[in-house]
């Protein structure tokens, strides 16, 4: 089928099948569909939209149809994306299963693992979370201490994970576990899939400086994982984790770079603008202009790197540069939002919906340069892998 035909048919199908309410911009966390065993749909439309898209395999358009995907080519998937965007359609399903576990399974999983785990992800039936970081380990994943002991066909897992997003709402967790006690640090870690619906797994939400958060601590207390749910070889976990971290990094950058309040609208909101539209504070105006310039530069760089990657130059360690720049820029934007709003930005709680959102976004943005590898780690990577500077 030609791309043109595909576009036409897709457009017609979407027109017919995407409920009107699913074409409205997402307003709050509640409008996002995460799926899972205990998921309560926000509306009948949300349910219908997920079901219809899942049936076509379009929650994961490029995955093979055998695993619940759409089997689309890269070009077709791009057309689908454009057509979804054209009608303002919401994503039918957001999921760490789609973004992270899926790619790992597709690359490292056995046929049986793919058959068992991918289709429920595609249909939004099983919700996954990620278990990497541990208290005190931070960017240094290799020093992690959660231990798995193999006995027969079962690992018994003990330890604690931290920064597991939505662990309290997830069904399964994919976790890095030290299974090979005697192997050197980098080679002793395995990538295990663990059912959270068992007595040995418990979670506790983490409160952040910005308030409630999706993050949890997750505790393993003699939790069981079958050996058939180990992805890759025993000790291959570090390699798989690195593969996934590069996916995560890209995600943080795109979150950081797009959307949200900007300082100019903030100044307008606060009434700190002259009649001719100029920001009243000339020094703030200068700072905002620098942000605009760097924002334009960053957008252009994202596009350039993508184009160059399409031409075979690859992104590689330059992803670290993008992550560093994008997240620092987002922090700066949030800081200028606060400056532009003045006292209004200080509001934490109030009588109006949305009171405190700007401050919470500002606080939340500080995590951008920590999660997914700190800015310092990114600078180390750039220095060593892009600039070829030697280690001490």
């Amino acid at each position, binding site marked *: 089928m030609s791309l043109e035909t595909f576009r036409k048919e897709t457009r017609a199908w979407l027109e017919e099948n995407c409920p009107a309410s699913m074409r409205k911009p997402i307003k709050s966390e509640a409008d996002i569909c995460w799926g899972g065993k205990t998921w309560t749909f926000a509306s009948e439309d949300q349910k219908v939209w997920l079901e219809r898209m899942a049936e076509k395999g379009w929650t994961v358009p490029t995955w093979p149809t055998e695993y619940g995907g759409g089997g689309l080519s890269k070009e077709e998937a791009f057309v689908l994306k454009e057509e979804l965007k054209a009608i303002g359609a919401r994503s039918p399903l957001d999921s760490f299963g789609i973004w992270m576990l899926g790619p790992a399974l597709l690359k490292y999983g056995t046929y049986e693992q793919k058959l068992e785990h991918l289709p429920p992800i595609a249909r939004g039936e099983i919700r996954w979370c990620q278990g990497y*970081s541990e208290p*005190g380990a*931070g*960017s*240094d994943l*290799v*020093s992690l201490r959660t231990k798995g002991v193999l006995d027969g066909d079962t690992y018994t897992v003990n330890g604690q994970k*931290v*920064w597991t997003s939505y662990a309290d709402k997830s069904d399964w967790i994919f976790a890095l576990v030290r299974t090979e006690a005697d192997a050197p640090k980098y080679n002793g870690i395995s990538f295990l899939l663990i059912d959270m619906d068992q007595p040995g797994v418990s979670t506790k939400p*983490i*409160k*952040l*400086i*910005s308030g409630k958060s999706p993050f949890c601590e997750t505790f393993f207390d003699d939790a069981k994982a079958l050996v058939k749910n180990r992805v890759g070889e025993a000790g291959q976990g570090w390699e798989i984790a690195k593969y996934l971290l590069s996916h995560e990094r890209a995600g943080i950058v795109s979150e950081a770079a797009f959307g949200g309040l900007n300082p100019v609208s903030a100044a307008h909101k*606060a*009434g*700190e603008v002259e009649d001719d539209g100029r920001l*009243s*504070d*000339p*020094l*703030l105006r200068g*700072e905002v202009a620098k942000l605009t310039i760097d924002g334009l530069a960053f957008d252009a760089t994202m596009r350039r790197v993508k184009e160059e990657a399409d031409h075979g130059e690859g992104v590689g360690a330059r992803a670290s540069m993008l992550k560093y720049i994008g997240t620092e820029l987002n*922090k700066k934007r949030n*800081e200028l939002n*606060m*400056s532009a*709003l*003045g*006292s*209004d*930005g*200080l*509001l*934490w*709680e*109030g009588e109006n919906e949305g009171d*405190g959102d700007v*401050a919470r976004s500002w*606080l939340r943005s*500080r*995590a951008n*340069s*920590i*999660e997914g590898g*700190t*800015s*310092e780690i990114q*600078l180390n990577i750039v220095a060593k892998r892009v600039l070829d500077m030697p280690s001490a």
Partner: protein
Amino acid sequence: MSFVLNEDEQMMRDSARGFFGESAPVSALRKLRDDNDPIGFSKDLWASMAEMGFCGVLVPEDHGGVDLGYAAAGLILEEMGRHLTSSPFIATSVLAASAFNLAGTDAQKVEHLPKIAAGEAIYAFAIDERARHNPGHIETRATKDGNGFRLSGKKRFVAAGTGADTLIVAARTEDDKINLFLVDPKAAGVSLQSRRTIDSHMPADFTFEDVKLDGDALLAGADDPEKAYEQILNAGRACQAAESHGVAVQAFDTTLEYLKGREQFGVSIATFQGLQHRAAHLYGELELSQSLVRRALTTLDTQPSQAPLWCMAAKAKATQVSRLATSEGIQMHGGVGMTDEYDIGLYYKRAQAAGEFLGDDHFGAGEVARLSGY
């Protein structure tokens, strides 16, 4: 004027350090927050502060204060900054006390200054009408009405506004000059809306609709009311800078301690040169901020005519440095710095709010340029 503390000042600092560490540590702020405290500070603490002599640090001795001057007030505030103590100290003991000292009539001094020193009444100082600090933008009007006045206008984010017994309101009189008026927040025509801010303080917005004021509501003791108004604000700025500086110093100390105790890749992260250079740079910034704060406060005490430039510079620098020290603090803490469990995030929030009050670093830089004639 001296950078080195004299004996009185050393005593004041030591007693403040001990007092706030014991009576108003960070956990006290957390409690106010978690209890959704309706006024955002503790009246019991305020009473204890009065007993310690803090509340009357700027009140002349014959009005019941200890009259140790701005330098001493700054030392108290630096300790409050270190412990994130929430109190109406700047509103009442700095701004209001300065207002009575500089613009009060003898009768007003006799009536109000002893109350400040004794911690018997909370005063709030109502200036801003827009989101960003702009002390010249005053549209609140006080029009003559018989022997008294009628007050109309709006004020925003008045510090210690929730819980204040008396407001001192900046308003324009018929000669278009800015004057200060005492207003009872419970008077007819006054409405109050509390604001809970990121630092768990509770400033308030006020609306005045044709509020009737007696003739003696006007602070009528200054030869040049607008000059007094400026002096009061500059005193507030230097003192706010002192608190911000305390926030910065404690955030830095906490972070440095954390760095030294934390290992990554098998070594203490305090050995990383990248972090060492940033910490050393930050230390230099803190030293600069320290010097300006002290210089501004002592200049207020000894050469008030030269104080404006130093106060603006100190406010701008302390704002910038406290924001830098706390944001670097979070970054250097890493993930745990983002959790509510650790204190560094609370310092970050306070640095932001304190920086905004009476003008942030952009405002300060603009004023420094203006005062320097360029």
